């Protein structure tokens, strides 16, 4: 194998580069990324960077010297626009064609948008560093913020905006924040925490419109007819895998790039991170994880499997792990925390906002959640015996 191309210049792409070099790959390595910045980390964007606690460069994943040591060609600010798996060529937006022997796809996600409102100034999504800095500037200028979508990202943005002293309303169709990710019981506790910090919650409500004047947003309207005045609106209603550039590639696509259990999508082609969908060997079903930890772990496995070849490739069977930081709460999950699971507190006290809860489906433990209990949660990892029972 002489030339490996990595498409995607974030955590998964960079980890793949690290792994390939560490495993002894000495051939040509090219990394393609549609943003201009050197690879940076995304979890701090909605927290430390948006809050202004970190200078933007602190989210950079590697120092320049470490990047140089990887001895790769960086094609930054350049989108991949197509893939030909028969001729093994990646096409770039500037017309260049990159031949490859091995390819790792790590193009991540694109934020989902509302069908209306995004043409107005003051309406934002947050995925990239540039979007974060633009949003931060807007937040500092306008006191009334409406966050649409109360998943991990929306809830974090609401908490950060409150930390900046802004007037924040958090809207979601679900009955509680993060209900889709951690169920309504823990979601209720998350809602309580936001209320304690004077965030206005509008749960169980659909957004019906975003109105503006002179090209700038003025309000968000809800399905009960209420109107939320807004200087800034953040849309955090989830993401879709960035696979549009692969539409004509012949690669199996669905909810992401459909890989086999070793993260392989086609001969010489692997995927890792948010964009990769694969049959989890223990869970017994296809999964796709939008978690920072997965970006690293899956890139290590995918890169290792690309080098070792299909006969030696190992299946990828991680225990999922995610976290969010809001106010003084660190909430971590391991395994699956489906909304239909039975939740049982096994350590600590929810009222004291320090506890561990187990998620059970059909009486088997499929996940665990720790609230300000990082160390205790780790000790419960071994209790996850029923991951195959999680739906």
């Amino acid at each position: 194998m002489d030339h490996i191309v990595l498409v995607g210049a974030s955590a998964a792409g960079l980890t793949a580069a690290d792994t390939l070099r560490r495993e002894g790959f000495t051939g040509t390595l090219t990394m393609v990324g549609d943003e201009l910045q050197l690879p940076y980390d995304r979890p701090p964007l909605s927290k430390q960077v948006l809050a202004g606690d970190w200078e933007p460069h602190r989210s950079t994943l590697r120092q320049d010297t470490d990047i140089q040591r990887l001895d790769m060609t960086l094609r930054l600010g350049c989108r991949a626009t197509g893939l030909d798996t028969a001729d093994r060529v990646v096409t770039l937006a500037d017309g260049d064609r990159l031949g490859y022997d091995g390819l790792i796809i790590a193009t991540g996600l694109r934020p989902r948008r509302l069908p209306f409102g995004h043409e107005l100034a003051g309406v934002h999504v947050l995925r990239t560093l540039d979007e974060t800095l633009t949003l931060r500037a807007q937040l500092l200028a306008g006191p009334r913020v409406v966050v649409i979508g109360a998943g991990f990202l929306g809830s974090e943005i609401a908490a950060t905006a409150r930390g900046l002293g802004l007037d924040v309303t958090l809207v979601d169709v679900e009955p509680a924040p993060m209900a889709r990710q951690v169920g309504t019981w823990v979601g209720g506790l998350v809602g309580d925490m936001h209320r304690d910090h004077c965030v206005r919650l509008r749960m169980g409500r659909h957004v019906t419109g975003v109105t503006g004047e002179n090209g700038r947003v003025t309000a968000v309207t809800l399905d009960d007819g209420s109107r939320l005045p807004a200087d800034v609106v953040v849309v955090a209603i989830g993401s879709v895998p960035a696979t549009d550039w692969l539409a004509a590639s012949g690669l199996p696509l669905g909810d992401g790039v459909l890989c086999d259990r070793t993260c392989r999508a086609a001969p010489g082609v692997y995927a890792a991170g948010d964009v990769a969908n694969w049959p989890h060997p223990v869970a017994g079903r296809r999964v796709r994880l939008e978690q920072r930890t997965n970006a690293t772990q899956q890139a290590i496995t995918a890169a290792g499997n690309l080098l070792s070849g299909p006969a030696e490739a190992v299946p990828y069977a991680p225990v999922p792990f995610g976290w969010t930081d809001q106010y003084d709460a660190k909430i971590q999950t391991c395994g699956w925390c489906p909304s239909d699971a039975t939740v049982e507190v096994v350590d600590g006290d929810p009222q004291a906002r320090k506890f561990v809860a187990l998620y059970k489906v059909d009486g088997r433990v499929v996940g665990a959640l720790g609230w300000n209990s990082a160390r205790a949660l780790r000790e419960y990892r071994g209790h996850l015996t029923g991951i195959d029972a999680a739906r």
Partner: protein
Amino acid sequence: MKILIDEGKCVGAGTCVLAAADVFDQRDEDGIVVLLDADPPHTSLPQVRDAAARCPALAIEVVE
């Protein structure tokens, strides 16, 4: 081998402890990494490197 940790970046995922339990632990109160052995024996290098590679916050640096 020298290990440097950045507590300000650590997110308390505990990935390092799963990779190299002789070298890393977590604080009880907030899960932040605790370095048990800043200069571990050379035999633990593969595990320590793995811990650094898998850290989701890149809070561990290994100087060989």
